[in-house]
């Protein structure tokens, strides 16, 4: 699954630490999400989408595996 988290975060001008504080997760989680190493739970995906004021599908892009 790809995501646009880093792009949206930078557009908002917020640091990884600040975003982590707002979402109540660790900074490492934000880093892992941005690098695509970790896929969030549906609850965290909703929190992220709400924080940026967009739909989940606008941040997380599901790609079929071949």
């Amino acid at each position: 699954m790809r995501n646009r988290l880093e792009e949206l975060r930078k557009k908002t001008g917020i640091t990884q630490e600040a975003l982590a504080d707002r979402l109540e997760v660790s900074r490492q989680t934000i880093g892992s999400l941005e690098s695509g190493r970790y896929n969030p739970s549906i609850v965290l995906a909703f929190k992220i989408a709400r924080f940026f004021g967009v739909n989940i599908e606008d941040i997380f892009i599901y790609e079929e595996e071949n």
Partner: protein
Amino acid sequence: MSLRNKQYLYVLGIIAGIALVIAGAFFKDAEIKGLMGICIGVGAGLIGMFVANLIILRIETKHPQAFVQKKIEEKDERNRMIWDKTRAKANTIIMMAVMPILTLVFVLIDAELYVILAMVGLILLNAGLYIGYSNYYNNRL
């Protein structure tokens, strides 16, 4: 529970630990010497645990931001996943490799039967817990 109540609880725990250690010192007769060891052991454990809790509580009150960060780290879903996976892997290695090999070694060196039975019992207990928890989570989730 409020910080003050926690403090009272920990102090009570320390007092209980000290009381157990002192009580243990009175069990000197040969027949109840085992009780002396248990009292001193449990008492010392209680003292250690509650003193550590008191120190942590003091750090929490002095550095509330660090405490908030610690809570976030504990609740963080990625951290929880890492801990769960780590525990599962460690358990798999111990129960699937170390325990069976160790049991086989004990059989080969002709160890006492109760040692071998204890090892087999542990492996069976682990398998039983695995089946039990699998069923539990299958029904719950």
